[in-house]
């Protein structure tokens, strides 16, 4: 049981890390602002979420995993809002999507 939990949590951690790397490559390689924001915003939420789920499986039902749940909800609300307000500001200051 412990081994299964360990394997599943490492699958979550590695997938989250991979998504983070993919997001970084996307920010670096995509041509314009909006597609870069898309790469950052999409991978950011899922990457952080998967890493937090993996860490929560590692720590078990403790105070640490409750704090991880709080961080997860914090990111769930703030990260899309940050992406939205960035793209909103770019659109209102006159940057046209290609």
């Amino acid at each position, binding site marked *: 049981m412990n081994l299964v939990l360990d394997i599943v949590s490492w699958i979550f951690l590695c997938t989250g890390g991979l998504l983070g790397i993919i997001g970084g490559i996307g920010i670096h390689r995509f041509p314009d602002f909006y597609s870069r924001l898309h790469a950052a915003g999409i991978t950011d939420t899922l990457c952080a979420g998967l890493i937090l789920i993996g860490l929560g499986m590692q720590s078990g039902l403790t105070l640490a995993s409750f704090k991880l749940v709080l961080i997860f909800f914090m990111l769930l609300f703030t990260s899309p*809002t940050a992406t939205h307000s960035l793209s909103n500001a770019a659109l209102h200051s006159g940057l046209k999507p290609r």
Partner: protein
Amino acid sequence: MSHNLILRIISKFLIPLIILFAFYVQFHGDFGPGGGFQAGVIFSVAFILYTLVFGLDSAEKIITPVVLRILASLGVVIYAGTGVASLLLGANYLDYDVLGKTPVAGQHVGILVIELGVGITVASVMILIFYSFAGRDRD
């Protein structure tokens, strides 16, 4: 300002949580990572977020710069006053041992009061610096 709808709703929801976290960092400072400086900065971040979203004028209605200046000096007074209190109780300056019944209890009281003073000063000075930067193009 209707294009800021999502930002306004989310920040209304987040500002109380940021202040709550600031108090957690403040009063948990003698058991774990945290303390007055960090808590003051987190506390001021709530007001800076409010100022960014709702504008400088409505933020200055909540805390005016005059009140902030008074609070900034009040924190220093609390810090120095703790030292003077321990002087009056017959120990060295900022020697917390005499503030409680036992030395350990006295040290708990002393560090809490000191960190409260630091937190008040740091928070109000951070908000004041942000106010003066944000209000540069007024005059």
